[in-house]
């Protein structure tokens, strides 16, 4: 296929990705160094109240937005350098908190709080997801042929459900005296409030995430299990390998590429954790990096969006993604060069 045909086939897709992914990235990068503000001017306003003989008049200075000739509010955009980053990172406060050794003071700063949660969330759910996924895959593989279809159908439900709705549905089971909280209270004999402190909310969020993504791991690994070489399994039996040894030395090495694939996807997706914060309405206790950017973008009470701070926090989020992707991308590049 020559270049022109290739370009004709791929062109529309590449164009859309450039226009809607690459261009916004650049514009976010640029925006993060600028601040757009409404121009205010100080005007003296004289307010008079009718009085006897003479009016009582007071003049006071107020700042009002300047309205341009076309009827729009004037704005200025100025270069502020790294100011927006400093506003998001609050390095001064963070440093003070760390110096005084106060972790809780450090965790009052939104960005560091979000970073802490995002990283713990990603790293804790990863092994749980792989473990549960592998477990389910092995169990489906063990089950009777006729049962597999329905089991896969049920397993797909948590995966396919809208993330916000999935989080909400778990939320409703625990909210207040929800059915599962009530069950736990009955079992432990204590009063339990799942949404009163941060760690229980985090626990629920992780539970939800594992519930939501484990089916994906399970189905991918189940497909991989179908291609395990049965001859090598049989020779392992003859050599006296136990069930566990067969799993450990034959099945898992065979599934390793798939496990890496699932882990990669999971890392990318878990780092973007967002819907959980919405679904569990946990913003009072727990926030994630992507939620932080989202929150800057949502108009505040005065209707202003802090675009530049959102851009700064977005760029900082990007750094994490880049670090996450460097290792696998280098591997792919080596494979590609080796393959040709």
């Amino acid at each position, binding site marked *: *296929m020559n*270049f022109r*045909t290739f370009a*004709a*086939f*791929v062109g529309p*897709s*590449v164009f*859309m*990705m450039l226009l*809607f*992914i*690459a261009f*916004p*990235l650049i*514009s*976010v990068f640029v*925006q993060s160094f600028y601040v757009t503000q409404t121009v205010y001017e100080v005007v003296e306003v004289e307010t008079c109240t009718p009085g006897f003989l003479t009016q009582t008049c007071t003049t006071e200075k107020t700042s009002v937005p300047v309205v341009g000739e076309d009827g729009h509010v004037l704005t200025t955009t100025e270069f502020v350098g790294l100011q927006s980053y400093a506003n998001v990172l609050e390095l001064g406060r963070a440093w003070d908190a760390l110096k005084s050794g106060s972790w809780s003071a450090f965790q009052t700063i939104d960005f560091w709080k979000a970073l802490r949660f995002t990283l713990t969330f990603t790293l804790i759910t990863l092994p749980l997801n792989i473990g549960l996924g592998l477990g389910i895959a092995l*169990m*489906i593989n*063990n089950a009777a042929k006729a049962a597999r279809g329905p089991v*896969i*159908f*049920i397993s*797909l*439900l948590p995966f*396919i459900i809208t*993330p*916000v*709705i999935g989080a*909400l*549905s*778990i939320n*409703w*089971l625990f909210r207040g005296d*929800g*059915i599962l909280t*009530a069950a736990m209270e009955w079992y432990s004999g204590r009063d339990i409030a799942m949404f009163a402190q941060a760690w229980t909310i985090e626990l629920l969020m992780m539970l939800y995430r594992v*519930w939501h993504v484990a089916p994906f791991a399970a*189905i*991918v690994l189940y*497909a*991989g299990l179908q291609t395990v070489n*049965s001859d090598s399994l*049989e020779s392992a*039996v003859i050599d006296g390998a136990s069930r566990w040894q067969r799993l450990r030395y034959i099945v898992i090495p065979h599934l390793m590429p*798939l496990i890496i694939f699932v882990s990669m996807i999971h890392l990318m997706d878990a780092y973007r954790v*967002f819907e959980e914060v*919405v679904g569990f309405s946990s913003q009072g206790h727990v926030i994630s*990096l992507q*939620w932080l950017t*989202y929150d800057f*973008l949502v108009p505040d009470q005065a209707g202003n969006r802090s*675009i530049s701070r*959102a*851009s700064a926090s*977005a760029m900082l989020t990007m750094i994490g*993604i880049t670090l996450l992707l460097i290792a696998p991308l280098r591997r*792919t*590049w080596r494979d590609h060069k080796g393959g040709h």
Partner: protein
Amino acid sequence: MSSRAMRQPLSLRLTSNSLLILWCVIAAFPIFWITVMSFKTPVDAFDANALNVIFGPETRAKGHGVSLLDICLLGLALWGLWRGAARLLPSMVRSYAPAGAVWLGWLIGAAAFGLVALVTLFGLLPVLSNALNPVLGAFGADVIGLTTEHYKTVWIDRGFSNNFQNSLVVTAGVVTVSLTVGTLAGYGLARSGSTLAFWILIVALVFRALPHSVLVAGYLPVFINSSEWLAPILGENAPTLYGKPMAVIAVLVAINQPFTIWMLRSFFQNIPAELDEAARVDGCNHFQAFRRVIMPVMWPGVITTGLFSFLLAYNDFLVTSLLLDAQNQTMVPAIAGMFNRETTTTDQVVAVAAAVSITAPLFILVMVFQRQIVSGLTAGAVKG
């Protein structure tokens, strides 16, 4: 030999199967439970006793309930519909659809089936049960409390049908455009082994990892001010892109594009290249080969990818909630708004009903397309 060597002891099989059943319960329970909750009065829905939630005494006391007869009738109707869909529908489509347009036959068949289902469930069933319940005594007495008032509140009073239409517009747009653009690109990438193609795929992979909020931070100022910078090109009536479904469709298509081209590429690689080479030998150029030879055999892959595009557009919260105004809001952001406003338990149950309404189409989707979804999940993965 092989079966005996691999045979597992009974205890292991029992453990494995019971754990699998436990997983199925965990997987289905939250969805099942919110479905049950959505049909009860608030007092029952948030009762601490599970039996009260299921049987709904409060709901029954208010006169909303179903009898054993109703349950039997419903079961019968669902069984009949299921049999009709699984047996009758395919054979009818096969015999009546014109040869060249089987998909049209399926479309009409599905629409007709939906109509029959609606008439049976909402037209025929209530009439039958109303007529028979008083006659049958204990068999016709209410046993389970059940009310559909929350669904009425959501869909009629809260304007959820409007959100539903918006969701429909956005998802239909995203699926159509992203498949059109993605199919071409996926084919091009699958048939070209050049380094450029490799780099496009790698960059697409990086793009796939981007948090969507990063991208939205880039769109927002541009979209809000679009009437200004579009004015030199489009003149006076340049649109403000913010709040327009069209803009959101374009954004979601682009966000979805990396995933789409990776998936379609792996499907196209499964179609032997000899097929289009043969067409080229017969004098087709690349586009003719694509249209005449590849298009007829690519549908399984395209349907699968379309399903995933549908899911992305349907499930999206972040992009739609930030880029659409209240009038064009889709279902998922709308429910989040409902949930924040909640003050009473009634509002909560209404939100539950909305959540179930959003989940129901997905449930049907899995039921119909389970095989395609599984093949889609494994297509990208098994090949690495």
